[in-house]
């Protein structure tokens, strides 16, 4: 069956929470190569979402549907080992490099699968995975703050010696609906400032001072955002645009290997 599957081009359909519903995107892929891209669509109603997904599913005999979960809160685990006094039976845990991890409530997962039952889900990825996929390599030998910005969430993680030692996620429901772009930028800068402050407040590593910020921008900010951030936080900012939907397709394909 695996052999047969390897011969077939698979359809990867991705769902990303947007401010008013979901952003649906799909790629037909085979052996880590994109055969065809399908234009992203913003859909607000679940009925319509199910209809669009079913239509995309008909493009291939095998299709996988992945969701980037950016609306439910997820926790950060500084270790992959069992933590004394902490019961993790009610959460679903994912480990990264056997060094650190993250988790989500099983109830939340159940609710999400239930609400998207008509659509059907094969993967639910955490922004932590997305962030590590994007920044992981560059932060193996470079300490700093890694940031992932999606339309509904900002995830900040502090990397030290290739391992996340602190993480904070902030849900952004209405900020992108603001009319004035400058105000939007200011809101996001404030979120990052608060995250950095939280890191310092936790005193996880007193000796560490954040000098570099690596931003994966999934929203599409202009360079004024970088400039403002550098001025406010006194840090060196490296901002790269991230195609969240495309990255989600890659994650889905990697998950099958």
């Amino acid at each position, binding site marked *: *069956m695996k052999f*047969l*599957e390897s011969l*077939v081009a698979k359809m990867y359909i991705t769902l990303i929470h947007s401010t008013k519903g979901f952003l649906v995107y799909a790629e037909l892929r085979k052996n880590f190569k994109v055969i065809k891209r399908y234009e992203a669509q913003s859909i607000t109603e679940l009925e319509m979402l199910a209809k669009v997904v079913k239509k995309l599913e008909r493009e291939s*005999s*095998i299709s*996988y549907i*992945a969701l980037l*979960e950016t609306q439910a809160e997820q926790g950060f685990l500084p270790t992959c080992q069992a933590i004394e006094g902490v019961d993790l039976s009610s959460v*679903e845990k*994912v*480990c*990264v*490099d056997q060094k650190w991890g993250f988790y*989500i409530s099983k109830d939340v*997962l159940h609710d999400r*699968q239930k609400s998207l039952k008509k659509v*059907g*889900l*094969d*993967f*639910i*990825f*955490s922004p932590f*995975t997305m962030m590590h996929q994007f920044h992981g390599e560059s932060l193996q030998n470079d300490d700093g703050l890694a940031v992932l910005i999606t339309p509904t969430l900002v995830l900040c993680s502090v990397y030290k010696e290739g391992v996340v030692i602190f993480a904070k996620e902030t849900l952004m429901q209405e900020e992108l609906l603001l009319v004035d772009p400058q105000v939007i930028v200011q809101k996001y800068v404030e979120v990052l400032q608060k995250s950095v402050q939280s890191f310092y407040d936790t005193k996880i590593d007193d000796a560490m001072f954040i000098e570099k910020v690596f931003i994966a921008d999934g929203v599409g900010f202009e360079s004024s955002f970088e400039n403002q951030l550098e001025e406010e936080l006194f840090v060196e900012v490296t901002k790269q645009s991230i195609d969240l939907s495309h990255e989600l397709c890659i*994650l889905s394909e*990697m*998950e*099958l290997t």
Partner: protein
Amino acid sequence: MRQSFIEPRKKKVIGSELKWLLVSMGVLFVLMVLASVLLNSVIANKEARINTILLKEKRLKEVQTEHLEEIERFKVLKKLREDISTNNRLKKENVKNFFDLVPDEVVLKSAKLRGTTLRLTGMTLSKRIYNKTFQRSLNSLFTHSTTHFKKIEGGYAFRNISVMGEK
């Protein structure tokens, strides 16, 4: 390393439509094979029957030829029998006629006809009467006729050879 919170659902490489198509093709293939086997069997039976009929026809022709040959042989035999019968009748008549030619003065002791040669022995009272009567008859009937006489008491013994050759 697993990164998704959930496991993917099980996938079927072959969709239901394709599955039905393959099953239909399979059934069609089986039906075609069965039909082919059935047709081959029917054809084989027909061929066997045709071969049997051809064999019978050949045998009948052989019997017919044998019968025709037998009929031909019977025809030849019949003709031969008729020829022999005719010859015998003619010979009988000739012999009868021949003996009618023998005059009273000539007494035949033996007469042997072998092929076209007649050998006669006998006796006569007078050579003159023999030559004037019986020898003349022989000369008219045969191509060559020669008589040798020997004087005996009371007459002459004679020995005649007459040959009926082609003229």
